[in-house]
């Protein structure tokens, strides 16, 4: 059918930051909205699930889905949108890699229900209500979108920077859809766009952001901060390092970095130097390495469900 391409934007469950970031397009947003037809975008318009259900398969040009998959309902909606869409775009870090809520996978569902509500909390229907009225159950673990439906391309970030959102629509309205698996961010790591200077590539110590007021010019890694920049895609303009805070990896790893945690471990360990290398320095080097706390939470802040299934928890 001719006319404007029809798209859907939906959150299975993100914090809403992705949608707000969309709004940050500002006036360009209105231009974009003029060129497309929003068939379904709860954040903005009052179309309903029934409308969506009534659409023929693949009648939507694209769906941008953000959020971690956490409940059965999330999965249902993702499948529904997949069925109705030609392109499914993972929109934001949660859909892309599992996102911050994916850190929940570090503990079991039971454990965090207990911790949140105290012992003996079991979902139940309201007074006079029936079983189906009790709150929906959670999936055993948080999942990225690609674990339940096939994803055509990715718009990464937490949230995706408006410029990158712009790219998607440029690509999209230009008529030729992006290649399968395309990620709307740079292939190169953040360092490429980071204005900080890299002088002496060696780590004599590790410091945490609150322990050091960093030099405004020098690379944060060289100053001992665990900056994920080297393993993380560019595309945000190195916003965090510019703000004197280390990159935490929200745009996800570069195409060949593989597992971002392993890549960081390798890079950090390679850079640690305490005096001359050699047996005499082993103990001191280990001290530096051991000063790294919470490696999983640090390296997989946005990607735990994509890369890590800890053996600690029973995996449903």
């Amino acid at each position, binding site marked *: 059918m001719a006319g404007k391409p029809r798209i859907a934007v939906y959150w299975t469950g993100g914090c809403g930051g992705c949608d707000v970031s969309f709004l940050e397009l500002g006036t360009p947003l209105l231009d974009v909205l003029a060129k497309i037809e929003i068939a379904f975008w709860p954040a903005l318009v009052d179309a309903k699930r029934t409308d969506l259900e009534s659409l023929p398969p693949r009648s939507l040009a694209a769906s941008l889905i953000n959020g971690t998959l956490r409940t059965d309902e999330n999965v249902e909606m993702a499948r529904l949108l997949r069925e109705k869409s030609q392109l499914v775009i993972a929109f934001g870090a949660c859909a892309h890699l599992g996102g911050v809520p994916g850190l929940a996978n570090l503990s079991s569902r039971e454990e965090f229900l207990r911790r949140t509500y105290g012992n003996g909390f079991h979902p139940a229907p309201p007074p006079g209500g029936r079983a189906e009225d009790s709150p929906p159950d959670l999936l055993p673990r948080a999942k990225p979108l690609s674990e339940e439906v096939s994803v055509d391309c990715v718009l990464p970030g937490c949230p995706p920077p408006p410029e990158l959102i712009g790219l998607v629509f440029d690509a999209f309205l230009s008529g030729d859809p992006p290649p399968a698996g395309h990620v709307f961010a740079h292939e190169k790591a953040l360092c490429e766009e980071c204005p900080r200077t890299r002088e002496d590539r060696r780590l004599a110590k590790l410091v945490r952001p609150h322990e050091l007021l960093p030099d405004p010019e020098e690379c944060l890694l060289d100053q001992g901060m665990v900056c994920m920049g080297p393993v993380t895609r560019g595309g945000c303009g190195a916003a965090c390092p510019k703000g004197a805070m280390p990159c935490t990896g929200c745009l996800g790893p570069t195409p060949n970095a*593989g*597992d971002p*945690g392993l890549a960081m471990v390798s890079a950090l360990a390679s850079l640690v130097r305490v005096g001359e290398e*050699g047996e005499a320095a082993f103990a001191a080097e280990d001290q530096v390495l051991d000063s790294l706390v919470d490696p*999983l939470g640090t390296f997989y802040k946005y990607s735990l469900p994509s890369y890590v299934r*800890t053996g600690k928890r029973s995996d449903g």
Partner: protein
Amino acid sequence: MAEPKFEPRIVAFLCRWCAGAGADLAGTSRLRYPPNAIPIRVNCSGRVELEWVMEAFRSGADGVFIGGCHPGDCHYVSGNYKTRRRVHLLRRMLGELGIEPERVRLEWVSATEGAKFARVMGKFVEEMRALGPRKDKAVATAGLVAVRKG
């Protein structure tokens, strides 16, 4: 009926100049050690990517052995030091992932230490037998972007 004895699967990354040569010497000296480990030769232990260690675990390995030159003897001066640090940090992470850190073993073996190679390899296999099969689940999933291009 009795359980069949558990035989650990092991991948051994051996540097060409020391551990690899040591393994060859163990061969020429006809020393016996258990066959559980499949050797993969690299120029330097510094070449060993942590991705490989994980790939081994992903592919079902019960242990990973890395053999390099003794401190001070690295053919490439300092590759073995880098490996030592990487493995040290990796072990810590493995613990949090529910994989026993002992499943990754780094050993210094010189070209002249055929006997030592046979001994440490035998010992490692023995320890892996004692440790039993891996209790953790698959370690990393190949998500949309987790697979690297060749």
